[in-house]
């Protein structure tokens, strides 16, 4: 070790100082070159802990910035998709005009348009960024929704939407096309009753303008029924009986039957000689009216109901008619992957936004998960699908009424008032926008904070160039003086002066 010198002519103190100065000179040069005050951990001194903490915070902030840029990219893509979907919805809403148009052209174009919009919506919901699907909650590695054509037509033994709609139509109509209602006339009373089944039309009320007709509200059973009883005096001409029904999609429709003395037309019944004949006539009119209602408006409603069954929402299962036979089916059963196409394969969570989160700051997390089975998408899909499978041939007398009832339902379902429900397209867009603004604000904070930390780190670590340069200059002077004096002193020996 160098503490005890064993070498010949060990360094005199003056030379030791020069060596120390030279070492310091080299150290200053290194500092100047690297820009760092300290070159090893030990040299950092009491700033060490602070330096460590700063570096850690800066590394963390870099991590957050990276997360933010990833999240921003995803949010932008989501934003684009959402605005396109919104446009589709408003186009569909605008296109829901009633009336066949000149030469019934709308009957052909509307279902085709609906089908192509449906295809586009499904494709948009399968959007992916570099293989990460955005609309399936946290199930990002597989497509959230199935292919539109497969969904419509089915694959192999798995039923598609068209099949499900057809089955539901049969179940709702019943074999006799009375919408699963039965009309029976007994002497002076006509009874209109439901069948014990979930399908078809349900009675919701009855009233009359005539004091001579006794009506009983739907009740009794199950299944409930209503009665219309005729007595003396017989009803006058122009007296009306109104029966209200609830259709399978939850909408309400009415039938009004007017009494007439002459030959009854559509929606009229003849006042006969006595109560019995009047009742009989009433029964016949009721039957034909109910049949008409079933074959037109109810069929449209049935399509929407089937859409609701097939395109299930959050927490619900895919349902279809339990049968065959379908026209006498009484209930729904859940569809399985073996026999039904399941339209949604993503995550089903009650809180879709928080299925995908990102940590963008200390204690700041943004949730930007979207599920394709949220109410906004669901509504749009169900509406489009129901229209897409419809067929309005010119030869079918029910086409026009079916079309009109379908379009009015369309308009109601796609109305703007639905925007304030959670999960609607507008609500989702707002929430995603909120996430984007949060990340933006946090990113700004991080940039400012990072800059601050960087400054502090530089203050600790960086060697101040001016101070070092001054020190080098001063040291150079001292070193030169020391060298000079050492050289002079070495000459001053008596030996040199002795002869």
């Amino acid at each position, binding site marked *: *070790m160098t503490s005890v010198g064993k070498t010949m002519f060990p360094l005199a103190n003056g030379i030791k100082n020069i060596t120390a100065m030279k070492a310091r000179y080299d150290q200053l040069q290194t500092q100047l070159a690297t820009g760092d005050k300290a070159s090893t951990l030990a040299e950092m001194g009491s700033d060490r802990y602070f330096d460590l903490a700063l570096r850690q915070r800066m590394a963390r902030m870099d991590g957050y910035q990276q997360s933010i840029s990833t999240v921003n990219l995803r949010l932008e893509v989501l934003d684009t998709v959402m605005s396109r979907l919104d446009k589709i919805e408003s186009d569909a809403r605008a296109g829901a005009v009633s009336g066949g148009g000149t030469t019934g052209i709308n009957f052909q174009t509307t279902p085709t348009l609906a089908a192509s919009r449906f295809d586009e919506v499904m494709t948009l919901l399968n959007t992916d960024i570099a293989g990460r699907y955005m609309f399936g909650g946290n199930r990002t590695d597989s497509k959230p929704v199935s292919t539109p054509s497969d969904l419509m037509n089915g694959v192999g033994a798995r039923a598609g939407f068209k099949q499900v709609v057809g089955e539901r139509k049969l179940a709702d109509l019943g074999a006799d096309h009375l919408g699963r209602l039965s009309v029976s006339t007994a002497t002076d009373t006509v009874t209109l009753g439901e069948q014990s089944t979930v399908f078809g039309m349900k009675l919701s009320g009855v009233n009359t303008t005539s004091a001579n007709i006794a009506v009983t509200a739907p009740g009794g059973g199950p299944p409930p029924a209503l009665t219309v009883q005729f007595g003396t005096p017989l009803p006058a001409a122009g007296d009306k009986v109104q029966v209200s029904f609830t259709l399978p999609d939850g909408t309400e429709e009415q039938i009004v039957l007017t009494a007439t003395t002459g030959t009854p037309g559509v929606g009229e019944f003849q006042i006969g000689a006595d109560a019995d004949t009047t009742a009989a006539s009433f029964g016949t009119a009721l039957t034909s009216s109910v049949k008409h209602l079933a074959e037109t408006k109810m069929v449209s409603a049935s399509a929407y109901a089937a859409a609701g069954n097939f395109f299930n929402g959050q927490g619900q299962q895919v349902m279809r008619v339990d049968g065959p036979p379908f026209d006498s089916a009484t209930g729904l059963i859940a569809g399985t992957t073996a026999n039904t196409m399941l339209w949604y394969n993503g995550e089903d969570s009650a809180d879709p936004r928080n299925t995908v989160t990102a*940590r963008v700051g200390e204690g700041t997390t943004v949730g930007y998960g979207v599920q394709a089975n949220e109410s906004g998408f669901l509504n749009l899909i169900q509406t489009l699908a129901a229209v897409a499978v419809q067929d309005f041939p010119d030869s079918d007398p029910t086409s026009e009424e079916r079309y009109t009832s379908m379009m009015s339902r369309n308009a109601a379902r796609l109305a703007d008032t639905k925007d304030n429900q959670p999960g609607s397209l507008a609500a989702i867009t707002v929430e995603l926008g909120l996430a984007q603004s949060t990340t933006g604000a946090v990113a700004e904070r991080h940039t400012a904070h990072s800059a601050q930390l960087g400054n502090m780190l530089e203050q600790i670590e960086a060697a101040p160039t001016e101070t070092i340069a001054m020190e080098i200059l001063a040291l150079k002077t001292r070193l030169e003086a020391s060298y000079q004096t050492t050289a002079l002193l070495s000459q001053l020996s008596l030996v040199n002066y002795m002869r």
Partner: protein
Amino acid sequence: MGLSVTLSNALSGMRVGQNALDTLSNNVANAGTPGYHRRSVSVIDSVGVNSTYAREGQLTRTFNQSLQQHYTRATAESGFSSVKASFLDRVQTLFGKPGTTGSIDSAYNGFESALAAAATSPDSYANRADLVQKAQALAGTLNRMSSDIQSLRQETEARLSNSVDTINNQLQSLEKVNLRLADQGIDPGSRATLMDQRDRLVESLSQQMDLRVSYRNDGTVSLMTRSGVGILDVKASVFQYESAGALSASSRFSPDDAVSGVGKLTIMTPAGLEIDLVKQNVLSSGELAGLIQLRDQSLVQAQDQLDEIASSLAKAMSTNVTAGTQVTSGASNGYEVDLADVRNGNEFTFKYLQGGAEKTVRVMRVDDTSKLPLDYVDANGARVIGLDFSGGTASVAAQLQSKLGTSFSVSNPSGTTLRVMDDGVAGTTDMLSLSTRTTASGVQNGTLGFSLFVDTNNADFTDSLDGVGQKLGFAGRISVNQAVVNDNKLLVQYTGTTPLGDQDRLNQIVSNLDGMRFAGAQGASGTTASFRLGGTVADIISQTINFQGNAAAAAISDRDTQEMTLDALTQRLDSEYGVDVDEEMARLMELQNAFAANARVMSVVQELMDALMQL
């Protein structure tokens, strides 16, 4: 007669002059020899035969005992501080300057960034693979640092062994020198040379250990350590070093020879008494003491701190925290929790309010009963109690009840459930929470925690205290779970059916690294005031780096101070003992003249006698 007196005067003058010239030439020749003490001839007048003034020259050697003692002590301190500084400097190079590649803090920061990126995009294969790679880099850094520290310890053993050989040789030489010096019959010149040799040997020995030197009148020395163990008194003691072979993290010093894993340094006195220098704490300064302190304290502490980092890292990944359910019974509130998953080394924690202050108790499962009773306060202020779980939950409840006293009521209502209730009406305590911290078993068993970092052979790290404790040396064994390396989807999929976009497991790891606090174990390295680590994983890493950097800086500055002191002393010594060539040259001129004058006197006397003879 007058002439003969003149002659003999001249002769004695010349003789003294010759002696002086002799000495002077010796001085000049040895002007640069290290350890050479300047000699001078002191002249004594004495009345000789024929009433001539015969002058005797006596050789004196410059020697200042108090300065020499001072110097001896300073060399010991300097040796101690310089060996410590050189080793600790290397330790801090191991840790690396913050921000440089290869330093432990940048490895950890890289791991955290990769984790954050993976948590944002768990479905990206690239992010997961990067995370695994950063984890491996972190584990690798810990492994490397641990093995480097152990090799530093190995080096101290090698140096101890070398030093012991050198010391023994020097003691043998010194013994011989002593014997020669005891013989007063040697001529003064040789005597002075022997004393120079003696001083050189003492100097070398004092660098190795702290000596107390007694200089006797006859010039011999006797050496003792400052603590009073004799090293040399006529006969030299023999130092022995028994190496322990390869050192690993578990080779620690223990007063019990059967357990001690490090080398043994003993001294065998001539009387046959063997003293263990480390056990008896004989040496307090010098290189030997420095090496021993490094081997048994400084480097061990560094290893322990690395182990703490490794253990906290592993536990942050694999710990599942299960909160207890609240239970009310009468006026008492409390919690109950299932202890079925608590493995050896795991613990359950409860917090309560007492006297307005929030207190924490950690109860650890300790299967090795030789470690019990265990009851101490950790670095975060929590009381740690170790209990034996082998008697079932009922026995755990009973043991805990007896430890806690009457302010709590601990019971085992059924199965493996433990219930801890406060004292209800008396109101001195209020239970705040009860939870278990268990190590997850398996990688895909439905819990969010999983063993990302494992021990050798993919064994789970449960921090059990069995044997020497699983934590000891863990930094050298920590590695990434092979199952995760083979299939990095396990980073995300905590059950077989978890979708790849699920962020729960990765978010849990991030929040654990942020919030889970760990505390250094009790008495981590043998010194009572040992620095204890506490806090999150990042805190522990920063504290360790800071501590080691600090220690290295302190050691380096200590060495520099000692060197300055030594330099000042050396300067003093130089001025006292050193040869100033100018002085000698001046004296040479005078001696030359004196010699010439004496010779002239002699030749004049010769002429006079010749003239007399011719009469």
